[in-house]
């Protein structure tokens, strides 16, 4: 592995640590605004947390693709110049974004709250990454495994959704509020689908490498599930805007497509026995442990997503912490677990000292239990608000939040557990990456 990819892994892990620190601070600012508003208000901390999380996932995913594609396409095809330019521009822009937040300079939209001019260097850097990926892709063999399809799709659709996300800067898109907000959430929803394609592709690649069974990434069954996932990326974003008085066919399409996710769910239940067999076989491998954790969280979050995709249920869950539970369960339980699996594989974590491996093993379980408490407490917060507002018709916001805050206090404590466990794992991985860089020099 090249040094610049290792350094990109280090930068990604620093973003993970930043996500956890800002997340915990933001939860305290939410619970104790009177204290925090003087120094670090919630409206400043939340963008730090959200952007750090977003860039942790995308940066980590790009590090995995940059490295693993060399195996898929052949190392001789690697374009190091484009990759170095991508990393420099990307990380440089992230630093500029954080500087804007520190100066309270905003101007963007949900998830992308920085001044929109910074979207330009992000766009350029993504094009550089795509160039470094697709140039060798064109020269590679025609019949590629499904993980290559997934990486390619993810990279392409992230570009499309990023452009779509910025359409609000064209006046026509802001002439109607419904149009503006519908397109914003179409882009946001599909963007999540795009980086999930990259991450699920990485997960599939790792499963192939761990098991040595290339068949699981080839053939029509694998292609069928890929196409089903792609259809959901394209059309299953509407649950964000179910309650908008927009055209009904948008809601109907999304509701219909989202129900195809039951196929994934049934497949997971059917494959449970095989997973148990594999688990016994590979239980000592650290990358595999993370993949198993990600599958468990896919199961729970898929069930939650299926329920939230039914408009009659969405009526209770929309605008509550159910949405946060789903977002956090997905980003920590699925995305972060897959990235840590990929990083473990790349950094050779299975070969490090036993003492360090023991630390990872302990923190892994603290992370899983903390996430469990975190996830269920957010669901409890969502349930309280949904019940009080939609079922009881309580319109007194402060009264509702007084009850919700009790559940959020529990989630904040669990968040501290996540900071300690994932933070410790990140530090061990950073040390390993830096040691490898120093050793090579």
């Amino acid at each position, binding site marked *: 592995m090249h040094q610049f990819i290792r350094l990109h892994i280090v930068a990604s892990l620093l973003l993970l640590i930043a996500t956890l620190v800002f997340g915990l601070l933001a939860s305290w600012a939410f619970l104790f605004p009177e204290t925090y508003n003087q120094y670090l208000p919630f409206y400043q901390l939340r963008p730090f947390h959200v952007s750090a999380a977003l860039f942790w996932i995308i940066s980590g995913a790009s590090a995995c693709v940059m490295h693993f594609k060399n195996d898929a396409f052949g190392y001789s095809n690697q374009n190091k110049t484009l990759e170095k330019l991508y990393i420099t521009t990307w990380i440089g822009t992230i630093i500029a974004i954080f500087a804007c937040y520190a100066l309270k300079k905003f101007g963007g939209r949900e998830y992308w709250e920085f001044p929109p001019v910074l979207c330009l260097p992000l766009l350029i850097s993504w094009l550089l990454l795509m160039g470094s990926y697709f140039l060798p892709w064109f020269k590679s063999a025609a019949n590629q495994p499904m993980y290559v399809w997934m990486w390619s799709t993810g990279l392409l659709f992230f570009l499309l959704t990023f452009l779509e996300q910025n359409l609000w800067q064209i006046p026509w898109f802001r002439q109607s509020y419904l149009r503006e907000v519908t397109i914003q959430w179409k882009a946001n929803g599909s963007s999540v689908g795009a980086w999930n394609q990259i991450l699920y592709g990485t997960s599939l690649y790792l499963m192939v490498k761990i098991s040595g069974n290339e068949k699981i990434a080839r053939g029509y069954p694998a292609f069928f599930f890929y196409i089903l996932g*792609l259809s959901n990326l394209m059309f299953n974003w509407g649950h964000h805007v179910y309650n908008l008085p927009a055209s009904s066919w948008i809601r109907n399409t999304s509701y219909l497509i989202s129900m195809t996710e039951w196929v994934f769910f049934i497949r997971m239940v059917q494959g449970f026995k095989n997973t148990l067999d594999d688990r016994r076989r590979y239980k000592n491998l650290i990358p595999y442990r993370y993949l198993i954790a990600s599958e468990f969280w896919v199961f729970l979050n898929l069930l939650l997503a299926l329920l939230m995709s039914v408009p009659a249920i969405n009526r209770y869950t929309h605008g509550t912490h159910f949405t946060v539970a789903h977002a956090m369960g997905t980003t920590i339980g699925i995305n972060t677990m897959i990235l840590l699996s990929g990083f473990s594989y790349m950094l050779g974590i299975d070969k490090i000292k036993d003492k360090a491996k023991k630390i990872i093993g302990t923190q892994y379980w603290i992370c899983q239990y903390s996430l469990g408490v975190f996830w269920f407490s957010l669901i409890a917060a969502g349930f309280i608000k949904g019940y009080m507002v939609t079922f009881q018709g309580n319109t007194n916001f402060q009264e509702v939040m007084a009850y919700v805050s009790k559940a959020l206090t529990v989630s904040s404590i669990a968040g501290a557990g996540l900071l300690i466990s994932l933070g410790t794992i990140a530090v061990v991985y950073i040390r390993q990456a830096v040691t490898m860089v120093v050793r090579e020099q």
Partner: protein
Amino acid sequence: MKVLVWTSLFIIFSIYTYLVYSQCDQKDTTTTQPNAAARAGFNTWQQKNCQTCHQLYGLGGYMGPDLTNIASDPVKNEAYIRAFITTGTAKMPNFHLQDAEINNIIAFLRWVDKSGRNIVPKEKVTLSGNYNLDH
């Protein structure tokens, strides 16, 4: 075969995207486009990062209440909104906005309010679990 399936799906997605762009707001009750004040208010809303604490149509942060229909709230009138923004509260910081900026934000919230109602009434839920918002 695989490339054909992928291309077909992408074409359907492109048509669908065009339809979303051109037809998604057919039910928008706003007959007029936003005036200059509402447009300026929308920009201030973003520059002050209001969406990180407040929701519109249930989208945004959870710190403060949803403001989709605050402009037509029978109890919380314009003076109430103005007082909140001007002085802040224990939970909401005072952003020290100019009078013109406050007027613009109120104009923006009025424009959003005219686009529809945030809460879907119970009677709009159908047996299929979907909504019927046509009538």
